[in-house]
């Protein structure tokens, strides 16, 4: 074992033990029962260079976006993370700090998180955003719990095309409250069936959840009419934050809580984690909301200052009666989103969003001109759309992989009402025309 490369030293221990009047370190462990002792850990060590080479070999076994065109989305997305964002987030003053419990010495992170809350509030059109949840699915779970805290009702209505992973997380988050999930249908445009939804609202309905764009990538203008239908039922809207550079913020059509996947703003996709749960609401519900909040105040000399606030909602104060158990959150991901939005500005953000829409349109057009049935639903799309397939999408994907292309998220026949074999294809600003061409050509070959 090469002690010199491990991140601590055993050298000056003898002197310390002498000071304590202890003959060996073992005396410090005499309170551990002999029968519960463990005889070390059987894992070999590696030196720094050896491990670096090993990791590199493992990394080379993967095919990342730059080595294989990839058309997956379904919750997390390939977006380019500008070097300025990566570099600044790698400043160890940020990433080796922890929750800013001591505000005076942590103003940097606190201000960044205040800026994050501000920009999420702006994008979503809500009064207040917390400084992060784990991901969109856990934000949804927390939103349902919050709705129950507000109105004590027990049912949440979700769209029939909700991603199964989100549904599973939601189910687990509300199980302890005895809440139930019910699904409302979409119409033949893939948009919310407002009449059906309306007929499902009862005095037990705690919340209605709607996504825009929805799981099929459809920009659903029916979301603007939900609040008038559901009245005082809590209206939760799930967003793709980048689309909000172009789309009306949910705050302007009556949302009570807005959630979404913040990875999209400046965080690498990183095999699905870490992610960033966006969570925003109205000021009148602020004391019911989960998660950390950063507030502005002043210091003893009257200067502007930032600090964690409204902490009596949180587990370290309220314990079993807290609004959530969340402690460690996704602060560094929130920081990266802040950097991303700061870097792009309103102009850049709109441009990137437009490029995303344009690319989606471009791929749909290319497929159509080659005789494919795309998109399944005739509606405006953001990032994603459904492509109907004549056979099992898993088999199609296997064949595509053999051609060096990763196809879309497979939708099995019978998964969703009215949809047979299909795949959810996704493009972002990162997809070049030649990537799309490769997909279309390969699809033609394998089908």
């Amino acid at each position, binding site marked *: 074992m090469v002690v010199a490369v491990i991140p601590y030293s055993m050298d000056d221990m003898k002197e310390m033990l002498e000071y304590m009047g202890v003959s060996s370190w073992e005396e410090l462990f005499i309170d551990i029962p002999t029968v519960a002792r463990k005889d070390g850990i059987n894992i070999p060590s590696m030196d720094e260079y050896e491990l670096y080479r090993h990791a590199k070999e493992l990394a080379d076994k993967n095919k990342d976006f730059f080595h294989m065109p990839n058309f997956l989305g379904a919750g997390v997305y390939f977006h380019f993370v500008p070097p300025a964002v990566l570099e600044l987030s790698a400043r160890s003053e940020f990433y080796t700090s922890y929750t800013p419990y001591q505000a005076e010495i942590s103003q940097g992170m606190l201000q960044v998180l205040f800026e994050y809350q501000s920009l999420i509030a702006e*994008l979503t059109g809500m009064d207040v955003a917390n400084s992060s949840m784990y991901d969109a699915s856990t934000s949804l779970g927390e939103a349902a719990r919050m709705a129950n805290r507000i109105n004590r009702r027990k049912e949440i209505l979700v769209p029939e095309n909700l991603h199964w992973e989100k549904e599973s997380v939601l189910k687990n988050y509300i*199980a302890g409250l005895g809440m139930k999930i019910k699904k409302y249908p979409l119409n033949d445009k893939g948009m919310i069936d407002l009449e059906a939804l309306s007929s499902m609202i009862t005095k037990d309905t705690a919340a209605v959840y709607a996504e825009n764009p929805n799981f099929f990538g459809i920009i659903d203008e029916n979301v603007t009419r939900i609040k008038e239908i559901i009245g005082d039922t809590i209206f939760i809207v799930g967003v793709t934050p980048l689309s909000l550079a172009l789309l009306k913020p949910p705050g302007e059509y009556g949302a009570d809580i807005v959630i979404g996947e913040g990875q999209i703003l400046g965080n690498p996709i990183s095999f699905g984690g870490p992610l960033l749960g966006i969570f925003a609401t109205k000021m009148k519900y602020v004391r019911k909301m989960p998660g950390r909040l950063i507030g502005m105040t002043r210091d003893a000399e009257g200067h502007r200052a930032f600090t964690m606030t409204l902490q009596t909602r949180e587990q370290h104060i309220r314990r079993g009666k807290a609004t959530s158990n969340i402690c460690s959150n996704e602060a560094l991901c929130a920081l990266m989103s802040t950097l991303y939005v700061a870097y792009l500005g309103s102009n850049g953000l709109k441009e990137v969003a437009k490029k995303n829409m344009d690319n989606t349109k471009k791929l749909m057009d290319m497929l159509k001109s080659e005789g494919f049935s795309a998109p399944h639903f005739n509606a405006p799309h953001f990032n994603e759309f459904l492509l109907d397939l004549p056979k099992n999408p898993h088999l199609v994907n296997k064949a595509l992989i053999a051609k060096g292309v990763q196809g879309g998220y497979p939708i099995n026949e019978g998964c969703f009402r009215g949809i047979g074999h299909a795949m959810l294809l996704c493009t972002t600003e990162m997809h070049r025309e030649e990537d799309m061409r490769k997909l279309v050509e390969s699809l033609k070959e394998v089908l």
Partner: protein
Amino acid sequence: MYRQARYDEPLLNEMHSTEKKDIDANVPTILKRENLELPNIPEYEVVRHYTRLSQMNYAVDINTYPLGSCTMKYNPKLNEEIARMFLYLHPYQDESTVQGALQIMYELQEMLKEITDMDAFTLQPAAGAHGEFTGMLLVRAYHEFREELEKRRNVLVPDSAHGTNPASAAMAGFNVIEIPSNKEGMVDIDALEAATDESTAAFMITNPNTLGIFEEDILEIAHIMHKNGALLYYDGANLNAIMGITSPGKMNFDIVHLNLHKTFSAPHGGGGPGSGPVGVRGDLVDFLPVPIVNYDGEKYFLDYNVKHSIGKVRSFYGNFGVLVKAWAYIKRLGGEGLKNAAIRAVVNSNYLKERIKEHYELPYKELRKHEFVVKPKNATALDVAKRLLDFGVHAPTIYFPLIVHEALMIEPTETESKENLDRFADIMIKIAKEADEAPEILHEAPHNTSIRRVDDVLANRKPVLTWKMYMEMKEKGEIDY
């Protein structure tokens, strides 16, 4: 002397913005956005803004950060470099194209099993508290399967427990019952025995506990739970004290969560991301979230075939970037290195305790593990914490655990030299003397940080939570800062 950087740094929205452009996209008229209030700032100004903010932030890479129960150990840079090799992979890619990533996850599962003596792990939970919640969902599922959930409504926690424990149990729908500590600072076994019966679903405990004291009766505690049909849950926040010397498995725990950002050196990220894998043994394996990563002798694969799985606790497979860092740390140190880290962490903690115990009160018994709790003799914990900042070290965790009034919870970790510990002890002693001789220095602290003491009461009374809220309140004359 310490002096933190101080800039009168504007908020992003207050910075000079170049002209805004209108960009027309093909969206339905009714959903068209009218206004987007975000500034347009050149790259170099953005970089300067956040670089300056970083200089107003304290971190492990600057100096000692003895935040109790948070294990603020040094984060080796190799981990960061390795994590950057895996940035542009999608979780739904064909398994043949992510064999390297899956191998890392599989190996991490295996190594965590070896460290904890558990039978299987899920890497899905995103943080420690999320792991606890997952654990409580497993407790639910286990009792539900045995048709006992209706009667097993109670989860027991010691009064010294982390706040997340009762919060997680409550979130999963259990009633929380607190078990008092005895005068030694350990769980009162008689009280525990009296509180445990057929209504008990589980007991959540960390060992060593939040006082840094090892629960010597842990095997007896396990016996009380198991004979009553209840489960024993291990909060792994304090695993750094015992790696390689004992393990949750050896102590007869049924469910364990670990904090990869504490024990296994993944950085804390200013509050997160963390990672809270959950390990279980015996029958509980059948309830774990899906997928688990498996290996068939030729290839690694995502295994959704878990008999009575609770499903998902978050999307995808966990905070992969954090998993990679923990994997790298464990691989590099190996079993012997991990054990030495635990030894050194405990030696550091006890040495620091010995250095300052004449100057601060040390409630409960003497022998501690990786952390210890003291209280000031003649000052508040808050004043001592704020004064520590003046010397360029971070404060301990304060006012926790709740069973010690004015608690200062100190965890130096293994990555501090004797020299650093001596310096920290000297500062603590100096502050204790100041508290006697010139207490106003403490009341007015900190002096050397980028700002002076914040007004938390005002922050609560007049919440200002966004830039827009700030502008509106300023306009109405409700605030003057």
